[in-house]
Structure formats: structure tokens, C-alpha cells
């Protein structure tokens, strides 16, 4: 009788823990989506609606499709985005990257850009990632002030080199994927 009791208690506790974990996981997921994802969707819908309805979209799309339709243009794009002066400005919230990505996606969806430009384009808009966040990211890693002093320019200059290399990698991969 005792053994059955403690067996039931163990099972009950185990199930309770799993259910509680799943419930909390659902809470965190919904919380994240409501706090971060949907507000950004609202923002980008407004920007895209504005762009499409006013014709500014055509200007931007024409400029982008010229740059994005060949590998040299994409390399140029990645160099511009990776410039140490520009990259920390472009980094916050990845807003500019998300807007350019959405515009490129619209061009691909319309057929104005070929589909296999997607992989190199994804890397072309990527070099600015984290460039605004370097001091905070290093502080999260408990870095000394001297490390931050050296680390910020080190990452920024490294991106100028590795940004275009990533585009070339994406270009090579676009023949496989």
C-alpha cells in the first residue's frame, strides 16, 4: 500500500513537472511573439504599405534589383553594409536589414529577381549583425574594458572582410541548395 502510494506520488510529480514546463514554454512563446514579433510585423506592414501605395517602392525596388541581380552587386551591397562607420548604425533591431530583406523578398516573389539570388542576398544583408551591440555583448561575457576597447574595432574590421566572403559562400551554396 505504501509502495503504491509513493509510486503514484512520483508519477503525479513527474507529470506535473512536464505539464508545468510545457505550460510555461507556451507562455514564454506567446509572450515573445506578442512583445517582439507582432509589433515588428505592424511596423513593417505600415512601411511596406506606404512604400507600395506611394510608388517609392518602385524606385527602391529598381535600385535594389540592379544591385541584387548579380554577384558583383551583392558584394557591393555587403561592403556598404559592412563599412565600420555604417554597420553599427544599421545594426539596431536589424531594422534596415529586415526592410531590405522584405523588399528583396517581394522582388523574388514577383519574379523580378531569380530565386537562387536568395542565399547570397541573405548574406549580403547580414554583415551589420551585432555591430551596434559589441560593448554590451562583450559585457555580457564579463569582458574587461581593455577587451572592449580592442574588441569593437576588431569585430568591425573583421566584418568588412568576412561580409563579402560570406556572400561568395552563399553564391557557391546557391548552386547546391
Amino acid at each position, binding site marked *: 500500500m505504501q509502495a503504491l502510494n509513493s509510486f503514484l506520488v512520483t508519477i503525479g510529480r513527474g507529470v506535473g513537472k512536464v505539464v508545468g514546463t510545457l505550460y510555461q514554454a507556451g507562455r514564454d512563446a506567446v509572450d515573445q511573439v506578442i512583445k517582439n514579433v507582432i509589433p515588428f510585423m505592424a511596423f513593417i506592414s505600415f512601411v511596406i504599405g506606404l512604400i507600395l501605395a506611394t510608388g517609392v517602392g518602385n524606385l527602391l525596388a529598381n535600385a535594389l534589383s540592379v544591385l541584387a541581380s548579380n554577384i558583383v552587386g551583392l558584394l557591393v551591397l555587403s561592403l556598404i553594409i559592412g563599412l565600420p562607420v555604417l554597420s553599427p548604425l544599421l545594426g539596431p533591431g536589424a531594422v534596415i536589414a529586415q526592410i531590405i530583406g522584405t523588399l528583396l523578398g517581394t522582388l523574388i516573389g514577383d519574379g523580378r529577381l531569380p530565386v537562387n539570388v536568395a542565399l547570397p542576398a541573405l548574406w549580403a544583408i547580414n554583415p551589420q549583425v551585432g555591430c551596434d551591440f559589441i560593448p554590451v555583448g562583450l559585457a555580457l*561575457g564579463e*569582458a574587461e574594458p581593455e577587451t572592449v576597447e580592442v574588441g569593437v574595432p576588431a569585430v568591425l574590421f573583421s566584418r568588412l572582410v568576412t561580409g563579402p566572403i560570406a556572400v561568395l559562400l552563399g553564391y557557391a551554396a546557391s548552386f547546391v541548395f
Partner: protein
Amino acid sequence: MEIIAQWAQAFIGVFQRGGEVFTGLVSGIVPTLIVLMTAVNALIALIGPERIDAVGKAAGKEGFAATPLRYLVLPVISCFFLTNPMAYTMGRFLPEKYKPAFYDAAVSFVHPPLGIFPHINPGELFVWAGIANGVQTAAGDAKLASIALGYLLTGLVVIYLRGLVTEYITGTMWKKAA
């Protein structure tokens, strides 16, 4: 009077257009995203993020052999288990000279997996989803999955490369500063 009415229509038309885009986004992505994030959050909670601390400690060793651990394994599991931005806290196990390179590698991995693991950085989902939506419209789901995989795999190569390059540049600049 007619002109004012036309302007009013054009004005509200801008927001209606935006509303159409918003509906498409919310009905298209949000349901899948919520279910996937619930599943991954639960998995991470059940596994227990403290387990990856051991990898962090091992990654600080000297020598080229430790670099895949430091700039490939550690960034990937940090991003998967801790997500952006807590992933960078794993740098605390590393010697000072490796911290910028680890940050570079880790932060470069918050976008490539988004096609398959959007929980890593849902606030910046559109860096992936913007182009992904276009691919889906033009070429279908199979191509989209292929590109998602391609982005993740090229991401692995890129973060390792970025770790090595930034480690080298950090070392050079440190010697000049000293």
C-alpha cells in the same frame, strides 16, 4: 469636393494596403511560430541550460585544435539554448583575448538558423522571413526548406571563419595597444 474625396481615399488606401500585408504576415507565420517556440522552449527547459557550461569551460583552451569548439560548437549551442542576447554570456568562460571573436561568431549565428529554429531570434525574424516569403511565393515550400538548410549550413562555415579572423585581428591590435 471630388478632389478632397479622392485624396481621402488615397490616404486611407495606404493603410488598407498595410493592413493587407499585416493580415498575410500574422495568419501566415505567427501560428507556426508559436507552436514551434513552445516546443523548443519546453525542450530547452527539460534539458537544462546549465549543462552547456562544461562546454564553455573546455572551449577556452589554447591551440588551434580548440578553435572548432570555441567558434563552432559553443556559439551554436549558446544560441540554441540561451538565444539572443543571453547567448553571449557564455563568453565569460573564455580568456579575454578570445572574447571578441566568440562574440563575433555567436552573434553571426542568430540569423542563419531562423528558417528552422526561429526561437533563436524571433524579434529579428524578418531578416530571414522577408526573403523567405518571396522564395515561397516564387518557388514553393520545398525550395524554401532547401534554402533554410543552406543558410544554416553556410552559417556554420561563416561563424567559424569570423571567429578565426576576429581572433587574429584582436591579437594583432592587442599587441599594438600594449
